[in-house]
């Protein structure tokens, strides 16, 4: 992913990547990275936890504005399944297989 990110940045579009492997980000050196200690398959957190997904996406978007040094890796430090996001524990939508586009 980092190589693609670098190519897009080099083509003139600012990029931010979410990473679940700090070692890879340190080697490949994408311009902006938000690193999470989350399991693979969960870069935005858990299924249907909209508050968690929103928080992480906002972190990434904010990194586009705040990171000024190329290669910076931000680590918000969220603990997997031991972190509360938003008001409640996130809005669970039971019984849905996908979240429809509004």
């Amino acid at each position, binding site marked *: 992913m980092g190589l693609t990110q670098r190519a897009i940045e080099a083509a003139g579009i600012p990029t931010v990547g979410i990473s679940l492997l700090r070692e890879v980000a340190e080697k490949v050196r994408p311009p902006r990275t938000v690193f999470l200690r989350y399991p693979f398959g969960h870069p935005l957190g858990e299924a249907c936890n909209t508050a968690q997904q929103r928080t992480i996406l906002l972190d990434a978007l904010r990194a586009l504005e705040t990171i000024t040094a190329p290669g910076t890796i931000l680590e918000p430090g969220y603990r997997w399944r031991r972190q509360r996001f938003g008001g409640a524990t996130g809005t669970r939508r039971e019984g849905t*297989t996908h979240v429809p586009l509004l």
Partner: protein
Amino acid sequence: MKNALLVQLFKRLPWLRTAWARRHRFVEADGIPWTPLGKPVAESVVALLTTAGVHLKSQPPFDMEDPDGDPSFRVIPVEAPRAEWTVTHKYYDHSAADRDINVVLPVDRLWELCREGLVGGLAPRAYGLMGHIDGRHLPTLMERTAPEVARRLQADGAEAVVLTPA
């Protein structure tokens, strides 16, 4: 098949992939490309790209048999019905993404932020790739796929891109 065994091990023992990442020889980079954000995110059109193997059911799945990976990409219109979105990737447990694609490609979350005025706009297309490109497919990724995707993102009017892994 050695690769198939490795895939199963990676899925069942996630720490093994961390160990692999420490030892694997990635394409290491010296300089870091840099494009400053032209205007605030609240005024920017943002695009999404994932290497988690996301594509539409109507599109060909990624080739999971090639040990060097599949360096092609899929163009996903963001308004495509969510029931059409699927994941082809054997190297990670994508059961969460199967239930809610936003776990790997936060298209609905980004759309919500746009409607709230926190993001300027959602680019019309998301891009689906497969990670784990290696060996003979690395040049294809770097010389063809990545520049082509970058050109398409520019044509889409993307002013910033959020990338997500598997």
